[in-house]
């Protein structure tokens, strides 16, 4: 046996997963509260004790961790045009596993400056202008950042013609210059900025957040948790050199404060005559809905989906549902305790999945011109995706996961939204996806075997 320990320092819980990579299988999982305020090792030791109660004493040959503790990797970004470089900056940061608190477009003003100062992010991503294009905006924004002060690092990934000028303006600050996130119009170049974010995370953020104490005991905190999730689902979709993957997929994580959606698919139109509009889409895409969550952002679900529609799904009156929503919002640690609150909780989760998937998926619109009908697609086409992974506390602890997940599928009432048509639901019941993403860095075959084994055995219908 060759046991490996995978640790996820979450914002609330420290989750530990033990696997055997010799004969790949899951040995056990356990969790405990994250103790980042005092010593992060206390929570880890506690979780390990609980784990070893199930598995017996384990002699780990490696320990790897990911982290979203202490607020995660908190980023701010600024670009020029909202739909272009500002969007590119956001897409790149989300893809690097960051929590993007806000994305600014055009020139930063005094209010933005105050807000940035108050936010005090872990990293600021400064972009704008294609190479050889606009330099005015990014230079202005660099000056604003210099005036605000602060000691967070700034990553410059804008117009290369302005990079050195911005660096000079930001003298005395930690500045990382990398390739433009949009080197020419409509071209997304996210990889260089993402590897820079990863470097800053490893070299600086872990220490700044008091996580380095743990890093001494383990083989390192390797990445932010969302990056680990992305690695795992990509591995599951694509497979390894020796094992086949399961193909294109979507994953949804409905949390208490946000809902994350991941897709691994090219997402091109079914009909080659369809025109594509907007920025090119990343093959592995992550979106985060900050207003959609089961407790802290519960009102955002009702705002987005409508009280009436949500109440219909729950089979409750609008008044009753509104009361329950108020109660959950005020007491974020409440769990459903009777039939009505259970139905409300599931209806809210269903709506969260629907809203987040609708925002993540692309759209197909029809335009009638002189040449007849012309189809135009924006975003990713997920119609043909066949697997839908469900993870996150609110969905894996109910019996009706499959039914809730189906709200993320193609909907005849909203036919232009390109959500998956026929989909098999896979449930991450043991909550191992992030752990397998970590493991995939060292033993992708073992990680894939365990992922398949654990996810395929549960289709959410119980």
């Amino acid at each position, binding site marked *: 046996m060759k046991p490996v320990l995978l640790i996820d320092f979450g914002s609330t819980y420290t989750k530990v997963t033990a696997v055997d990579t010799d004969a790949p299988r899951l040995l056990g999982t356990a969790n405990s509260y994250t103790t980042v305020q005092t010593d992060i090792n206390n929570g880890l030791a506690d979780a390990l004790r609980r784990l070893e109660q199930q598995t017996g004493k384990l002699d780990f040959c490696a320990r790897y961790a990911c982290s979203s503790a202490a607020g995660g990797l908190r980023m701010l970004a600024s670009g*020029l*045009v909202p*739909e*272009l*470089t500002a969007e590119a900056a956001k897409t790149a940061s989300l893809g690097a596993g960051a929590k993007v608190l806000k994305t600014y477009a055009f020139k930063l003003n005094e209010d933005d400056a105050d807000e940035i100062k108050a936010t005090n992010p872990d990293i600021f991503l400064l972009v*704008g*202008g*294609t190479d*050889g*294009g*606009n*330099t005015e905006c990014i230079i202005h924004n660099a000056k604003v950042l210099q005036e605000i002060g602060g000691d967070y690092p700034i990553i410059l990934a804008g117009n290369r*013609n302005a990079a050195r000028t911005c660096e000079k303006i930001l003298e005395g600050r930690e500045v990382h210059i990398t390739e433009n996130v*949009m080197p*020419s*119009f*409509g071209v997304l170049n996210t990889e260089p900025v993402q590897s820079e974010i990863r470097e800053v995370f490893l070299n600086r953020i872990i220490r700044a957040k008091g996580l380095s104490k743990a890093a001494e005991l383990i083989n390192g905190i390797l990445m932010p948790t969302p990056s680990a999730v992305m690695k795992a689902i990509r591995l599951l979709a694509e497979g390894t050199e020796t094992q086949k993957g399961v193909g294109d997929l979507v994953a949804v994580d409905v949390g208490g404060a946000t809902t994350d959606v991941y897709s691994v698919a090219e997402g091109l139109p079914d009909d080659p005559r369809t*025109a594509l*509009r907007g920025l090119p889409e990343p093959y592995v895409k992550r979106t985060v809905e900050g207003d959609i969550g089961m407790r802290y952002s519960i009102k955002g679900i009702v705002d987005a989906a409508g009280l009436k529609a949500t109440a219909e799904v729950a089979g409750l009156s609008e008044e009753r549902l509104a009361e329950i929503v108020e109660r959950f919002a005020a007491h974020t640690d409440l769990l459903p305790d009777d039939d009505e609150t259970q139905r409300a909780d599931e209806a809210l989760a269903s709506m969260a999945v629907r809203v987040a998937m609708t925002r993540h998926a692309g759209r197909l619109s029809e*335009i*009638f*011109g*002189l*040449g007849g009908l*012309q189809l*135009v697609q924006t975003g990713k086409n997920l119609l043909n995706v066949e697997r839908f992974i469900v993870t996150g506390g609110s969905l894996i602890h109910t019996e009706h996961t499959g039914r809730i997940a189906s709200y993320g599928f193609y909907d005849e009432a909203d036919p232009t939204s390109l959500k998956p048509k026929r989909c098999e639901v896979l449930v991450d019941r043991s909550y191992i996806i992030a752990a397998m993403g970590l493991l995939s860095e060292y033993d992708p075959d073992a990680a894939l075997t365990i992922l398949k084994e654990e996810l395929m055995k549960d289709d959410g219908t119980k």
Partner: protein
Amino acid sequence: MEKQKKTLVIGVIGADVHAVGNQILYHAFTDAGFNVVNLGVMVSQEEFINAAIETNADAIVVSSLYGQGELDCRGLREKCDEAGLDHVLLYVGGNIVIGKQPFDEVEKRFKAMGFDRSFPPGTPPEVDIAALKEDLHVED
């Protein structure tokens, strides 16, 4: 020096899908030494403007082949001004109006809409290139 090249944003406006002429213009302008950002067909006014902002464009060259150009182009100048692109040169060309109309009248109408130059159907690219070079002070 790369930056010395003048940047043009080109595309076919509105719901128009005529791709060939635009592609010819792309090659002709590129060969003539311009940095060309080609937005393709079915381009909205906003897309022309956004591209021009990011790329710091010197001119926007709008094509329209399906007769609805006058409707599609209305307000583009005003939106450019609003977006801080008041210095950007605006050209339009193709079958930009419905039916056969005397082109000097058409030109006058587009001038009033804020287009610096308009070109009738069948204009060879060399004519546009000469005009661009003159207006953007590009020396051969």
